[in-house]
């Protein structure tokens, strides 16, 4: 324990490893959270079924790999259009009717969707833990004193690329501008001739496509099972609340904070207790800065 206090080469190595782990993890969390925050920001709906779409993405990667030996990296490109369509269909069947309903109706609609999807997966594919092991998950990259497997590094790079692409889309395209306008003031947007129903449909589909793609990316890194989405989505809630619900830049910063808490927490206290840390952080943020670390005060008590 004494030697750990002194800052030798070994300790710098540990710090570097922790730092890089944080960034790698944060990038993936950002992709999961960004869809959630997008849907909330524009539709004002907290999607409690968000984790289930991640789980479906993981199963898609698992079955493609097991049944047809398709690498998850290839599957990624297929998954984006698939989940975009899944998002459109879910919007039409489930979300469209409750978009103007009360919070409680919206909460229980997405909670019901979550329960149904989880158990459809349970019925179809049983509760067994499934593992996807493509060639790249056993390739280790060493850089200075740090070591990472290739799946993780590439998952991070793709996640960052997708998040940045989504960000650019929202910022610079006409559709993105229309979506942001609807988020700011739905009624005014309608008066300007914006078809808000179309905006909501597109928003939901994009959010689901992002989280589905994230599911495919994380499949080689974590076990796949029907409630696999829960742990990630709880984490995504922490991320988006930290960053301020609906705030995309906040979601990215929030991902890094949560990843840092997780990485450093598991190093100091062991893997078993890391979740307690970020839930306590979550409750503390909700209690003291409910609009997020960077958000405007008061957002949480508005019609939010």
């Amino acid at each position, binding site marked *: 324990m004494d030697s750990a206090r002194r800052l030798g080469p070994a300790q710098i190595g540990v710090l570097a490893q922790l730092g890089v782990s944080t960034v790698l993890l944060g990038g993936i969390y950002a992709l999961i959270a960004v869809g959630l925050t997008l849907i909330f920001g524009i539709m004002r709906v907290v999607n409690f079924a968000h984790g289930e779409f991640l789980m479906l993405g993981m199963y898609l990667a698992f079955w493609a790999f097991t049944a047809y030996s398709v690498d998850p990296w290839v599957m990624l490109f297929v998954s984006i259009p698939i989940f975009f369509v899944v998002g459109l269909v879910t919007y039409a069947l*489930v979300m469209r009717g409750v978009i103007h309903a009360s919070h409680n109706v919206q909460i229980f*609609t997405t909670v*019901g969707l979550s329960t*149904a999807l989880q158990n459809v997966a*349970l*019925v179809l594919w*049983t509760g067994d833990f499934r593992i996807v092991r493509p060639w790249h998950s056993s390739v280790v990259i060493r850089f200075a004193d740090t070591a990472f497997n290739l799946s993780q590094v590439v998952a991070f790079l793709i996640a960052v690329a997708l998040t940045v692409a989504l960000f650019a889309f929202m910022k610079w395209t006409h559709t993105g501008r229309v979506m942001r306008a609807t988020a700011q003031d739905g009624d005014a947007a309608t008066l300007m001739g914006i078809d808000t129903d179309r905006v909501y449909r597109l928003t939901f589909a994009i959010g689901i496509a992002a989280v589905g793609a994230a599911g495919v990316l994380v499949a080689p890194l974590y076990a796949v099972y029907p409630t696999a989405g829960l742990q990630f989505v709880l984490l995504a809630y922490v991320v988006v609340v930290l960053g301020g619900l609906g705030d995309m830049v906040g979601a990215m910063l929030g991902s890094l904070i949560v990843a840092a808490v997780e990485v450093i927490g598991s190093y100091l206290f062991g893997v078993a207790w890391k979740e307690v840390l970020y839930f306590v952080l979550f409750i503390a943020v*909700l209690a003291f800065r409910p609009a997020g670390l960077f958000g405007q005060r008061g957002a949480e*008590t508005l019609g939010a």
Partner: protein
Amino acid sequence: MAAALRGRAGALAFFAVAAAVPLAVRDQFFLDTLILILLWGALSAAWNVAGGYAGQVSLGHSAFFGIGAYSAALLSARYGQSPWIGMLIGMVLSVGAGLIIGYLSNRLRGPYFALSTIAFSQVLLIVASRWRGFTAGSEGIPVPFRPGFATLGLGHVAWAYLALGLAALFYGIQVYLERSRVGYQLAGVREDEDAAEALGIPSRRLKVVAVTASAALTSVCGTLWAQYVGFVDPFYVFSVDLSIRFALNTIIGGMGTALGPWLGSILITALETYLRATFAGMKTGFAGIYLVIYGVALILVVRFVPEGLAGVGARLRARWTRAHA
């Protein structure tokens, strides 16, 4: 008296039947179903106090259920104490936890509040499943069976009447919430908090009281449930699924109605028992089919019949009265 009973014929019939069944039926399977219907209904009624009457929708009520279950189980398994003492300790702890959650409910509305309650129950889940030295961790705790009322080692008939007494008590609490000044004030806060506040209703204090009372009632049910079932598994008693189930029964039966929680419980418990029995021999995952039905039912009910079964009943009765007036 007549006024108090008006519109409560359904409830009277329900409790009368529930009281008569154990006299006539000795079949354990049937009695077990009755006990579960009454207990699930009582749990949903406890949720209803916060979610239905005060409008504070929690998705983390399993936290209080687990506190009640663990308090009694640990006390009787480790220290040989009566579960009734455990029930009291559980209530005290849940009141403390309820005050914390109630405080959050003052600052947060809608989905933010629901999220914070989920996080709260997850913290307790992690502590209960990882703190091996005290809670036995993820292995759970078997509750020792010692015959006698003081140790809650009862037969099925005694359990049925205990559950019935609890159900009647909780029903009474809800009726009080419908007819008393506090109840009307809560309804005001639920429908329009700002307007209620403007009328001088102490909305913040009322919400905290409602959430705390709901927590204490849930904890009592948690204790009884653990003693009845005989085993406490952290991944069950603190699960999000369990919290959803309290809400599901209430929503299907009718949020903010006194009999609603039991109407929902009859339907859901009967459905679960039937489907479990039907699919018991099939591959393990198939048992999940009833949860798929829950999920779809939840989506359909909040969309098309948000007032629940009790609301539909009231509507039909009103139509019938008008037609025959």
